[in-house]
């Protein structure tokens, strides 16, 4: 057993560290507004920040880092999953913008796993270049936790499929180019056996979107309506009618690649610094035993989160499917995201409610925001209850009710 990085891994870690310190503005970590492991889009403070984010994406693309773990024949470096995990950890620690996305974290690995060579040729270069972004077309009004109940229907017609139905909670759909969408292709089959994956162009005629404003006041969600949307047959990814099984794999990727584990450590360091520098009612916060214990518990849980994160990468490198383990990681990390926000709010008392910079606002209002944002953590990508079902049924072999 060895919990240290190999020489090669450490070299990559150091390379990333150097790169991030050189290529991001020194005060960049103060710019993005996002709580660790939430499912709300990261916001920035002004236009200039968005510009910095776009420029940074170009730098990552120039390094070919959006495809580091892809096999060489797909233009990648064949880096290990552990190195991919190191990349995700360092980027999230520095709150680096645009360093991973649905396209790079979910769609690309799925294309590499179940896509045809032609599909890989079509999509992978555009993902690696940061040229296209994608949104997840999973949830529907009648299919949330129960994704097997998806009703959006795709019917074959000549060289196309014709899609009709509705998607919801479609995060970032209005800003993206394509959807990674699961729909029903065989309405007569048992529900898990008649679903398929498509890549759907947002510009297709018949797609309309209604913005849904989230509790932070941001336009993050959309309702997406599909009315006779024609999708070319070559955009069906993976085996027809096996989409639900592909979806289970895609969710495993999502639960690993979108953790942003480094963000926990960064946010926690800011919280500890605040506690060290501030007093309430004349007593330094750092001398309050209950605060000390709460922060010690959060620190411990972050360390555990890191271990569970490295474990999934290691399992992938050993050719194992971290199926239950990715649910454990997702459950643990998102519950931690919420706990950390609630603990921070408890520590800050009335100052925690300040949302924007004032003379008394702690940590740029991040905690107030995190208090709301982290509600999404234990709901998105499968609620905590769904993760527990997976652990109990797939992991421990308990019977379905």
């Amino acid at each position, binding site marked *: *057993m*060895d*919990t*240290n*990085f*190999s020489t090669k*891994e450490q070299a990559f870690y150091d390379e990333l560290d150097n790169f991030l310190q050189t290529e991001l503005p020194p005060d960049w970590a103060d710019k993005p507004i996002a709580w660790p492991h939430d499912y709300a889009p990261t916001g920035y403070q002004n236009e200039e920040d968005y510009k910095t984010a776009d420029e940074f994406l170009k730098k990552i693309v120039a390094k070919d880092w959006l495809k580091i773990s892809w096999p060489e024949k797909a233009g990648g470096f064949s880096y290990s999953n*552990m190195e991919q995990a190191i990349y995700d950890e360092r980027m999230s620690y520095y709150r680096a913008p645009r360093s991973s996305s649905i396209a790079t974290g979910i769609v690309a690995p799925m294309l590499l796993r179940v896509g045809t060579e032609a599909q890989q040729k079509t999509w992978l270069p555009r993902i690696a270049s940061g040229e296209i972004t994608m949104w997840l077309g999973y949830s529907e009004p009648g299919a949330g936790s129960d994704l097997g109940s998806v009703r959006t229907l795709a019917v074959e017609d000549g060289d196309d499929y014709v899609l009709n139905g509705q998607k919801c909670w479609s995060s970032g759909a209005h800003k993206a180019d394509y959807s990674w969408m699961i729909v029903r292709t065989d309405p007569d089959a048992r529900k898990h056996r008649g679903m398929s994956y498509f890549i759907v162009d947002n510009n297709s005629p018949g797609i309309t979107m209604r913005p849904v404003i989230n509790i932070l006041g941001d336009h993050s969600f959309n309702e997406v309506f599909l009315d006779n949307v024609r999708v070319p047959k070559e955009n069906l990814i993976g085996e027809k009618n096996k989409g639900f099984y592909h979806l289970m794999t895609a969710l495993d990727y999502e639960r690993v690649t979108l953790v942003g584990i480094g963000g926990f450590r960064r946010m926690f360091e800011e919280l*500890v610094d605040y*506690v*060290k520098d501030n007093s309430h009612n004349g007593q330094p916060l*750092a001398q309050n*035993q209950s605060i*000390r*214990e709460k*922060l*010690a*518990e959060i*620190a*411990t*849980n972050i*360390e*555990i989160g890191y*271990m*569970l994160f*490295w*474990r999934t990468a*290691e399992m992938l490198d050993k050719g194992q499917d971290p199926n239950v383990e990715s649910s*454990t990681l997702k*459950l*643990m990390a998102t519950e931690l995201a919420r706990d950390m926000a609630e603990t921070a709010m408890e520590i800050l008392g009335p100052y925690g409610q300040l949302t924007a910079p004032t003379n008394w606002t702690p940590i740029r209002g991040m905690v107030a925001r995190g208090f709301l944002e982290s509600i999404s953590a234990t709901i998105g990508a499968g609620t905590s*209850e769904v*993760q*527990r*079902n997976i*652990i*109990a*049924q797939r*992991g*421990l*072999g*308990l*019977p*379905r*009710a």
Partner: protein
Amino acid sequence: MNLDLNEEQQILNDTARDFLRGECPKALVRDARSAREPYNKGLWRRIAELGWMGVAIPEEYGGFGGSFLDLTVLIEAMGEACLPLPFFNTVAIVGTALQLSDAEDLKRELLPKIAMGELIASFALIEPGNTYGTTNIQSHAVGSEDGYFLTGHKLFVEYAEAADQLLTVANIPGKGLGLFLIDTTALGVEMSRIPTLDDAKQCEVRFNNVAVPAHRALAIGDTADTLLQRLEEISAVGKCAEMVGAIQPVLDMSVSYVKDREQFGQPIGAFQAVQHHCANMAVEVDCSRYITKLAASKISAGEPAAKEAAMAKSYTSKAAVRVAKLGHQTHGAISFCDEHDMHLYLRRCHAASVAFGDVKYHLEKVAQEIGL
């Protein structure tokens, strides 16, 4: 990074589990509770014949030269077995303290005996009113030409009645803390058993002006502080391994029971409320296992591990008791009966959770380590 056991450790693990499942059934654990003799000498001998006491003792001192990780493999198996023997204190504490010390003569004298299973020892640290640590030690050792006279009062000394030697900590006026090995047959050593929840035969020990030869001091002053800090890390993580070993079977028993037990016409494991109890247990076992792996591998590699050890002990202590309690909840009334094994695990987990630093103690350590 590699988070799995290596091949040799896997073999050691399999062998240890097989042996203990056969030789240390729960009936033996139950018998040990009321036995008059402080430990089962026959079982101790058989374990010694397997060489377990010497696993992590260097070859030059009669051991096998294994690592701390090798030792945790054995301790974890012992947690599963609820092994009622003075292994932990003899090997993981006193054996380790000797190895960490510069007391070459004592090492040559005692480590081979420990490796052979010919010496039993325990750790007398906690004093009345203390929970752990070395910040409020009242025991004192007064120096003389031939050595010291040590006076002190210690609690929660596991298997003291079985011990040949007790490792203890006392203040030496003007010199700081001293770490001493005391022969239990020495004049002025008194002990009596104190009633506790577990079966570890814990004792109260009094040292009344006990004469301790100078060469029985393992370390003094700064050296003692450094040794005690590392010993604290090792003992905490060792106890974590024991707890991880104990909560895995709690989870396994619970899962197998809820698959089997039917109520309302179906296995209770089909109910989501029960499934979520089991899932929560599984997550806590996992988290305990991995934070313990982190701390244990750092110790094994000779790296600083103060933070990781305190994290592992504070987390696992809490989780182990929670998992054991959920084990009771999933089993229902049968688990409230003496004949059922669940309470053996609850007792073992609780004892381990408060030994070598309880949750509060280690959380405070973590707080210090993160700069608070």
